[in-house]
């Protein structure tokens, strides 16, 4: 069983192939790349007119299983990922129970294997039960298959505990992924604190709730000489702090979400609860700074923070509705529309942010690039195709997208994971 | 093409008002307990003129009020343009008074029906009489005027336009259009 992709215009982070090539896939690997390959009896995909990219890798996805299978399951989340062109997704540990032991890690891996669509990498919790009190058995988590740890949804508020976590995770070889939010400062805020929150009378979550954690963790990483990864960076000041830390040689990395480089807090004026997200949508200058940070490399990668919620949960009032939006299926198109379309990144730059960089950050050496011998995780896209986001088209179990009704550019045509076609546009 | 013909000129309007003033006095045997209530907008102007005419004839000042009948209309659900509400000013008790309601044109009778409902909410007059400048017919309710300036036969498709200097900044007159 193999696959042959004909007329592939390959785009890697390193560059674009000068002339179309053929790619032969066998046993889940890219066996051969050559100007013309003939392989009788093998299924052929003609990629003429399209671009062929390394499968996207999302460091930040909420699959909700175990515990909230009404919102999403590993099966539906995997299908949503495949439709969005993702071949590897990192599952956040804020499930019920939390992914804080090797057993839960194993459960997620088993479920993902049963589903058999995309690679699922469970992210372990930093602290037991994500309670912020005791660090988890990180060596065991690592052995069970974790590549990173996070208490996502909450920051590790105790700086002393964070120090221990960074030290211990460094020994275990795990990437510490921080949700940057000082909960005393965010103080149950439901949107960005600023003119718009004042006008709307909604409780504000100020930018400083994010920046004080980033500043603190930069100091910890500097002192301890460990790595730390900042998730869903949302503000201009955060980008500036990370830029300076990188210039000083501190081992910090960062991700940004498509919604934070696309939307401002103006979107909340609709009171559409799918615009309620944590960290909240910020202001125009912040959106610009995220784009600048992606352009100059301050922000290493794009992650979706795909956070499905049921209609029942999201139909609540703005104060009560849970934060989060579904992002797997719109990420590439938003990258094309907002970043490539506006000259922020080239297509190769976007491939770096969505494939190569996240693979590199998490040590997935066989992913993130189309090259002979690498895993056959490939996505075929039409970068020019315009399409309308509709509720009906969303494969995720939840439909909480603020982009419904929006016209976007860039469509995933076919997703191949481990040499197997896992999504194909009808 | 619409046609337009003048039915009353300024002099005729003036004479009609004077005549109605006399009729009111005659019918009520003087002015005791008589008061005037004008229906916005032109009824108010006519009521003021009647009041002045009676002052001239009798040397007495009648009580007088202004009524906005829009709250009482039965067509709020039907008409397209919502009427702008103005104040009703009746600062005396109408109970046991002889109220003379004044309006410019009597047509279907619905405005008067609304005015009667409104008046009843203000008290229990001993009688209510109706004075109009023009009665153009086509009643839809069992209502008639006690004092009429001029009866004008019209068809339903025609429009009767009354202009009064105080409200229309235009010479007094009544015109039929259509």
């Amino acid at each position, binding site marked *: 069983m193999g696959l042959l992709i004909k007329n592939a215009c390959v785009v890697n982070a390193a560059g674009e192939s000068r002339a179309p090539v053929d790619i032969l896939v066998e046993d889940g690997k890219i066996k051969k790349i050559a100007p013309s390959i003939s392989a009788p009896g093998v299924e052929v995909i003609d990629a003429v007119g399209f671009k062929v990219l390394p499968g996207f890798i999302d460091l930040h996805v909420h699959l909700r299983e175990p515990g909230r299978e009404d919102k999403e399951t590993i099966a539906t989340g995997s299908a949503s990922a495949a439709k969005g062109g993702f071949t590897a997704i990192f599952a956040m540990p804020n499930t019920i129970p939390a992914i804080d032991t090797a057993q839960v890690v194993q459960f997620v891996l088993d479920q993902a294997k049963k589903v058999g669509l995309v690679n699922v990498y469970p992210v372990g919790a930093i602290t037991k039960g994500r309670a912020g009190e005791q660090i988890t058995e990180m060596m065991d988590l690592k052995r069970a298959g974790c590549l990173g740890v996070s208490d996502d949804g909450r920051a590790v508020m105790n700086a002393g505990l964070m120090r221990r976590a960074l030290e211990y995770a460094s020994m275990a070889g795990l990437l510490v992924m921080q949700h940057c939010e000082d909960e005393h400062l965010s103080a149950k805020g439901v949107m960005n604190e600023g003119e718009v929150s*004042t006008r709307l009378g*909604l409780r504000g979550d100020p930018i400083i709730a994010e920046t004080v954690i980033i500043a603190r963790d930069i100091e910890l990483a500097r002192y301890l000489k460990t790595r730390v990864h900042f998730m869903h960076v949302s503000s201009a000041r955060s980008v500036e702090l990370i830029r300076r830390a990188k210039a000083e040689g501190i081992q910090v990395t960062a991700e940004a979400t498509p919604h934070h480089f696309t939307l401002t807090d103006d979107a909340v004026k609709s009171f559409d609860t799918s615009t309620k997200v944590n960290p909240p949508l910020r202001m125009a200058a912040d959106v610009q700074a995220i784009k600048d940070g992606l352009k100059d490399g301050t922000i290493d990668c794009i992650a979706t923070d795909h956070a499905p919620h049921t209609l029942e949960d999201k139909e609540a*009032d703005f104060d009560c509705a849970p934060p989060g939006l579904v992002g797997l299926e719109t990420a590439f198109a938003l990258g094309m529309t907002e970043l490539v379309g506006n000259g922020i990144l080239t297509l190769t730059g976007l491939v770096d942010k969505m494939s190569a960089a996240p693979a590199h950050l998490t040590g997935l050496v066989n992913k993130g690039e189309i090259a002979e011998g690498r895993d056959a995780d490939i996505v075929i896209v039409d970068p020019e195709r315009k399409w309308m986001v509709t509720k009906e088209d969303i494969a995720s179990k939840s439909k909480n997208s603020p982009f419904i009704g929006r016209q976007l550019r860039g469509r995933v045509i076919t997703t191949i994971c481990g040499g197997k076609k896992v999504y194909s546009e009808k | 093409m619409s046609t337009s013909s003048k039915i009353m000129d300024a002099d005729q309007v003036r004479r009609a008002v004077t005549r109605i003033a006399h009729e009111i006095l005659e019918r009520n045997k003087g002015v005791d307990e008589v008061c005037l209530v004008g229906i916005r907008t032109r009824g108010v102007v006519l009521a003021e003129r009647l009041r002045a005419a009676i002052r001239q004839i009798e040397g007495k000042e009648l009580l007088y009020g202004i009524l906005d009948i829009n709250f009482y209309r039965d067509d709020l659900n039907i008409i397209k343009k919502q009427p702008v*509400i103005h*104040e009703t000013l009746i600062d005396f008790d109408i109970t046991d008074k002889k109220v003379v309601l004044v309006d410019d044109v009597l047509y279907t009778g619905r405005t008067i029906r609304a005015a009667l409902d409104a008046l009843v909410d203000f008290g229990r007059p001993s009688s209510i009489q109706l004075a109009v400048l023009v009665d153009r017919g086509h009643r839809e309710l069992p209502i008639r005027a006690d004092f009429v300036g001029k009866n004008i036969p019209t068809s339903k498709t025609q429009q009767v336009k009354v202009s009064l200097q105080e409200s229309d900044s235009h010479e007094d007159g009544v015109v039929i259009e259509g």
Partner: protein
Amino acid sequence: MMGWKHKHLLDMGSLTKDEIGLVLETAKSFKEVSSREVKKVPALRGKTVALLFAEPSTRTRVSFELAAKRLSADTLTIQSTNSSLTKGETILDTALNIQAMNVDLVVVRHQASGVPQMLAQGTKMAIVNAGDGCRAHPTQALLDMFTIHEKLGSFSNIKVTIVGDILHSRVARSDIQGLVTMGAHVTVCGPSTLIPIGIEAMGAEATCDINKALKDADVVMGLRMQKERQQESFLPSVTEYVREFCITPERLRLAKPKALVMHPGPTNRGVEIAAEVADGPQSVILEQVTNGIAVRMAVLYLLLGRKSK
């Protein structure tokens, strides 16, 4: 005069100067109705108005109820602080149930900002916001403006000073929007922790200096100070608030001699306003209550007294 084109009344920001003028003018006529022996006109006969109150409020509810009844509309009240209504997730469902009973207009009060807008989008009924979260309380602003206009005759060149917990006040927000639209100058004053970021963008001047705020004011409005703000560290103590910000007779002397004293009620006497001031000759607090009915009648009439689409 121009007509009314809104189906809902959700906030003051969506009303133009002319539209606010129309509401105030219409309210004048309705104020007369409430002074009659028979305080009722048939303008909304056959219409049904539901009062959906998810947050306790006697004054506003009673005011709306009387307004609707004086227009001959039928009313029904769904008031709840303990049933399903307190759960945000069922408010739309509750509204749809009300709609299924052919109710024409819903007056809604909710502790979360944006709920009236959500109902306006999710149902076919006309929606009147009777206060949502910290966002808006348009009929309160309109009755405040009616009272100011009745007493002072104009909005231009008048200084309105609002003192207290601006951060949590929907009344302050709606008053600012309405008054600024009409050309008045609005100053808000309170402890720095209770003045929201970016309030200047709504057109108000903000200061923590009570003397400066009250100086030459034409209108001085106090806002209710909730004792819970102390627990949330917005205030060190109520005592300190009283010392620094209470509208006392001495402080009131800084304002113009005939400055109006207003309060949306209920007042915390001796906290945000001294009893002598609340009951003093400059106080129009009870007239605000009277005017509230007229303004709400005007709003209900403008929204319902016409052909429904």
